[in-house]
């Protein structure tokens, strides 16, 4: 939708129509003494000086692109092709917002429709919404959808401890006051981790009963592991609980899609699909489910239809689900979507295609396995467990992870992996190492060399 500014003549006509003499008079209700308060700010800088000052500040940062990066744990350094920015920065997309008027938003609506379609292809599901803020809130919305599907009669949520810690916290925050009990991820629960026995998601089966609205697992899990979830799916379905799978969209370029092994709702973080790390956001929560749950799904939904002349067109559809019509009976308060990040993801998926996404996933997989093998040979470090994994794996370290990471950063300019001791008491001195297609072999060899020094 183009920006059409007002001319002075337009403004004068409008003022005259409402009987106001000047723009200032419109602010008449604001007391004089607060209209232009004194602000204790330094003198204005020129554009050149301002930019100079910001550049100096920026140079003090060491960001993920400044050196080899092996940090993942929910936000990942994946390649963003130039074509993504080229499309996303177009003014028609960059400034457009809510596509409620289909007659002026066909471009935006079509892009979202294509995104929805590709997410369904990737996850093996039947319908996708136009996105949520991020993977964490999408997971919380999945819980709310499951509760709604069960007409509020079931109050229990079974959640794996190897779902991202922040996601589990957000699920609890989101559902507080709803009278739900969220179980399964307690430190001493059946799914708990300890450095000897690594609980798999299947141990959650014993917690499922007929008060369970949904079971939530992550694929690959927070520790990078891939597990066959079909038994868990069967157990959930036997109790008529929904299976919610939090999935890594990059991994789905290689792995069996959750829709193929019984997922009822697939959610996750779409940041890896064409959005940079950006210090934490904006990110992208995707949400896909089965057609039969579409009316319980939150978020915007773009549908394909024909106009009065029989031409194909796109519109926001099933809008009676949304809070501005259903109000307190809506499934969720969310009535927005991450339009620009959705567009980036759509461009990424279209540009790479099925083969490209498989190639990216293969690179992540093979490089991570190479790294694990090399690190496992360093004296003092050991790989943990023998479960299949995708792009992240756990390493037991001879010293605290924080110390190792300080050394890596200060002496080698390497960003080390995630300190699992922060979230799991049993995993102190365990590091979660992430390797993506953006870590060439040289990076990995450098990390190995650096870690060899650490062990000494």
């Amino acid at each position, binding site marked *: 939708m183009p920006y059409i500014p007002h001319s002075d003549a337009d403004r004068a006509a409008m003022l005259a129509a409402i009987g106001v003499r000047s723009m200032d008079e419109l602010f008449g209700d604001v007391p004089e003494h607060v209209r232009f308060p004194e602000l204790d700010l330094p003198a204005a800088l020129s554009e050149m000086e301002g930019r100079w000052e910001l550049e100096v500040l920026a140079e003090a940062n060491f960001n993920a692109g400044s050196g080899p990066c092996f940090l993942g744990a929910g936000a990942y350094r994946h390649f963003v092709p130039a074509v993504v920015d080229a499309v996303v920065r177009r003014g028609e997309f960059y400034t457009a917002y809510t596509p409620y008027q289909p007659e002026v938003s066909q471009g935006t609506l079509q892009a979202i429709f294509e995104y929805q379609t590709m997410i369904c292809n990737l996850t093996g599901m039947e319908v996708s919404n136009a996105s949520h803020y991020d993977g964490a809130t999408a997971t919380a919305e999945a819980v709310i959808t499951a509760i709604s599907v069960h007409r509020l009669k079931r109050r229990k949520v079974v959640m794996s401890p190897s779902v991202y810690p922040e996601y589990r916290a957000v699920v609890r925050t989101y559902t507080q006051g709803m009278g739900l009990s969220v179980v399964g991820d307690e430190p001493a629960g059946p799914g708990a981790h300890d450095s000897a026995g690594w609980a798999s998601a299947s141990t959650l089966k014993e917690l499922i009963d007929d008060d369970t609205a949904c079971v939530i697992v992550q694929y690959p899990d927070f520790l990078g592991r891939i597990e066959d979830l079909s038994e868990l799916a069967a157990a959930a379905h036997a109790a008529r609980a929904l299976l919610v799978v939090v999935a890594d969209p990059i991994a789905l370029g290689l792995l069996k899609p959750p829709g193929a092994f019984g997922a009822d709702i697939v959610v996750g973080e779409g940041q890896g699909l064409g959005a940079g790390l950006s210090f934490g956001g904006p990110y992208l929560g995707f949400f896909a489910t089965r057609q039969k749950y579409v009316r319980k799904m939150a978020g915007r939904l773009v549908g394909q239809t024909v106009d009065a002349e029989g031409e194909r067109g796109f519109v926001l559809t099933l809008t*009676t689900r949304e809070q501005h*019509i*259903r109000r307190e009976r809506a499934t969720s308060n969310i009535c927005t979507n991450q339009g620009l990040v959705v567009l980036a993801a759509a461009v990424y998926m279209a540009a790479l295609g099925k083969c490209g996404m498989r190639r990216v996933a293969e690179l992540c997989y093979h490089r991570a396995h190479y790294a694990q093998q090399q690190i496992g040979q360093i004296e003092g470090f050991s790989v943990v467990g023998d479960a299949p994994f995708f792009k992240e794996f756990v390493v037991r370290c001879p010293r605290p992870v924080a110390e190792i990471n300080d050394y890596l950063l200060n002496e080698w300019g390497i960003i080390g992996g995630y300190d699992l001791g922060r979230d799991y008491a049993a995993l102190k001195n365990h590091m979660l190492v992430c390797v993506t297609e953006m870590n060439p072999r040289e990076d990995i060899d450098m990390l190995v060399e650096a870690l060899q020094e650490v062990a000494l």
Partner: protein
Amino acid sequence: MKLDSDARYAKSHEWARWDGEEIVCGITDHAQESLSDVVYVELPEEGDSFEKGDGFGVVESVKAASDVYLPMGGEITGVNEALEDKPELVNQDPYGDGWMIRFAPSDPSEFDALMDTEAYEAFVAEEEG
């Protein structure tokens, strides 16, 4: 405005009619006209129990989502599954094929407290007025 002479009416525009020992219930012609094209009806499950006045479902049309309320208390014994695929039955035949639920009333005398066709007609006229 169409009316069913065997039915009685609630102020929230639902109708109720005896069928044997059970009550059949739906929304009135006036209601379906105000809503315009119905696209979805959310119905309760058999065995659900409600008090008089409780919301038992939602009617979604192209322009609104409206709660529907039980004109009498009771336990649901049947729902109109045809509405799943053909919600437009509510518009086409609100007192016949567009019925929504059947229930066993907990207090049959609540039927008499509902408006008869004349009273309902007058009520609607006044609401519009």
